[in-house]
């Protein structure tokens, strides 16, 4: 059977029709209602059986095939028109062996990353990161994304048989976060790995003062809630699609402004450690929120000499001096903010007492960050940092804005969704006028009460 799909300029499906077939008429009849379901589906609709499409009774296989075909066509057009990558993985494993291989690779990487932290092994961490870059980045191009969270919110999660990688990244991204903290962000996310590797290349500017830096880190939380709320309100993941820089980088698909944002994030990461992870990544904000409930986290144990080297070494300023409440009189201890800690392990290796550990227990400390008083002179590094952040937000506004703005071409005058709000009579008159048809009063009719 050959099908034809009509899409408008915003990759919304206007019609699906059978062009050629070898089926019986009764079968075609049952097909009509099925195909009708596709009308008006937008560029980010899941187009999946049981989610937003009902299969034809006793013809599940054909329904699946048609749905998949329509989805592939829609995805191709939305890539061309809107720069949104395919909703289907490059290669979806089908055999059980492949699936097991895929999951075990992910879990293996997770275990080796965890071991690297526990054993303070820097080499093992970089090996794991190389593996993560290859596996999640180059090979499968599947990373935990805000879009997944929004799809769950919209009740659109795909079936594992259609997109098992979607579930793999979700499980690998979320479950360990509840156990250990942001280990996915720190060791497995390919874009984070790339940023960290780039950051190693150059001499770094002065540390950004904590008040500015900590403030900047809040941005990603705002982005997370802002984008999620916007998408849920619009009932579509469209505004959030392709805003994350790893999407154009690893899928090769994005609008020009999304590519520009990606390049800017790469440049920023050379100067500022994981600039995107620390300040802008909505997934990072989410794992940050989840890691507040994590079972294990980095905690100072007995024996801390309050030397403060870990606080100085933390590249994301997740550590702060604190005041001990263990009854002893020591003025300085450290407290780790699990929401920002990327489990990079720098503090663990630098601690002369080796008393920082991934643990359930530790000395309870209250953060004590001295308040700044009066106006402070900002230095060049801080000014450039703020400029980067504002510039990034501007570009990001462009990426998200371009999604909500007018479609690239063609109007939506005939769009089923917008047509629904139109009075039918007016619409008919417009159609007839456009076609140059002038109605002539008919015979043989009566008014019906």
């Amino acid at each position, binding site marked *: 059977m050959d099908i034809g799909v009509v899409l408008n300029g915003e990759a919304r499906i206007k019609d699906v029709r059978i062009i050629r077939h070898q089926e019986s*008429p009764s079968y075609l009849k049952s097909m009509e209602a099925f195909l009708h379901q596709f009308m008006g589906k937008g560029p980010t609709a899941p187009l999946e059986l049981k989610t937003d499409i009902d299969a034809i009774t006793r013809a599940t296989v054909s329904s699946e095939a048609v749905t998949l075909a329509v989805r592939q066509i829609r995805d191709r057009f939305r890539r061309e028109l809107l720069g949104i990558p395919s909703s289907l993985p490059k290669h979806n494993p089908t055999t059980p062996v492949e699936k097991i291989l895929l999951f075990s690779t992910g879990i293996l990487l997770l275990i080796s990353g965890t071991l690297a932290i526990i054993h303070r092994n820097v080499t093992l961490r970089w090996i794991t990161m190389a593996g993560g870059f290859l596996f999640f980045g180059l090979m499968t191009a599947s990373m935990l994304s805000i879009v997944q969270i929004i799809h769950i919110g919209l009740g659109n999660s795909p079936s594992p048989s259609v997109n098992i990688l979607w579930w793999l990244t979700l499980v690998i991204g979320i479950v360990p976060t509840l156990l250990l903290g942001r280990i996915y962000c720190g060791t497995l996310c390919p874009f984070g790995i790339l940023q960290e590797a780039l950051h190693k290349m150059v001499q770094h500017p002065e540390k950004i003062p904590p008040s500015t830096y900590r403030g900047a880190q809040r941005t990603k939380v705002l982005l997370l809630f802002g984008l999620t709320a916007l998408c849920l309100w619009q009932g579509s993941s469209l505004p959030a699609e392709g805003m994350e820089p790893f999407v154009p980088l690893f899928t090769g698909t994005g609008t020009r402004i999304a590519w520009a944002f990606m390049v800017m994030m790469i440049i920023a990461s050379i100067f500022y450690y994981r600039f995107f992870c620390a300040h802008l990544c909505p997934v990072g904000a989410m794992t940050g929120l989840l890691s507040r409930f994590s079972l294990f986290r980095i905690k100072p144990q007995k024996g801390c000499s309050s030397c403060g080297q870990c606080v100085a070494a933390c590249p994301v300023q997740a550590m702060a001096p604190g005041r001990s409440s263990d009854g002893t009189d020591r003025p300085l201890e450290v407290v780790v903010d699990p929401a920002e800690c990327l489990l990079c392990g720098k503090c663990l290796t630098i601690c002369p007492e080796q008393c920082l550990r991934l643990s359930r227990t530790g000395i309870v400390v209250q953060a004590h960050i001295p308040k700044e008083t009066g106006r402070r002179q900002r230095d060049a590094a801080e000014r450039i940092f703020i400029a980067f952040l504002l510039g990034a937000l501007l570009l990001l506004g462009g990426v998200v804005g371009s999604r909500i703005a007018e479609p690239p071409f063609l109007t939506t005058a005939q769009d089923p969704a917008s047509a629904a709000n139109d009075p*039918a009579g007016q619409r008919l008159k417009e159609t007839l006028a456009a076609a140059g048809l002038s109605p*002539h009063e008919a015979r043989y009719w009566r008014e019906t009460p």
Partner: protein
Amino acid sequence: MRTVTCDLCPRHCRLKEGERGDCRVRANIDGKLYSLVYGKACAAHVDPIEKKPVFHVLPGSSSFSIATAGCNLHCLYCQNWQISQRPPEETPNIDLPPASVVENARRYDCRSIAYTYTDPIVFYEYTLDTSRLAKDQGLLNILVTAGYIEQEPLKALCPFITAANVDLKGMSDDFYRRMSQGTLTPVLEAILTMKRMGVHVEITNLLVPTWNDTDKDILALIRWIKEHCGSDTPLHFSRFWPTHELQNLPPTPEETLTHAWELARAEGLSFVYAGNMPGHPGNNTFCPGCGKILIRRRGYQILSSNLAEGTCDACGSRIPGIWK
């Protein structure tokens, strides 16, 4: 919000404002029913009258043939689905008011105007006004229709119609429902009404493999015609060709067509034809009196005629039809 009911055809579509009927060309605009295709022809051609097919009216003459978009049936085998199953805004239309139709028919030396291709029932007002004008000016009017129309509008139209070719698609209601989303009874009634009102009626039956090609189907059709319309009613068996939504079927085999043709002759029908198959003996008109070939045809083409003013020049039998 005023609702109207269209009483033109047996569907009796109830339409809210802005809605169109099943035919896609009649709509409720501001609480009144309008025809959307009056004077808007989507097809206008000069055809041999044999193409309709009408074999007993002015053989060899041209017929100015018009159609508009839309149809009140939805046959799976429709040959003209590109216009019949489309709303008028999706077909290329030309402005051709009734006066222009008549004028054009004269200009192209047509002796008749044929309302055809889709179904003239759905452009009823256009057909009615044009045929009235044409009759005044001495032209004949040929209706090529499936006959799915209500009695009252049909009776109002018949006085202007010279001849009709009615497509009697099958002899069971079930067939009509499955093939055309229609029903049988109104078609039979329409044929009888036309006959009664003096319209020369020829009947066409398209033989579709596996759908209506058994002896039982064919005999039911032949016997109904013989009993209700008379054995001198011309009957055209037509060859099906795979199209539209029935591309899964083969064309009608020649044997089936020949068999049906022979069956009808054996049952006593005088004028039986086999169409859509040039060269078949069933293209010809045979004299019921002496069996001689009266009009020899190949497809739509007349090869020779042995008719003199509607009578066989050999035995003098009168042949029903309009011959001059």
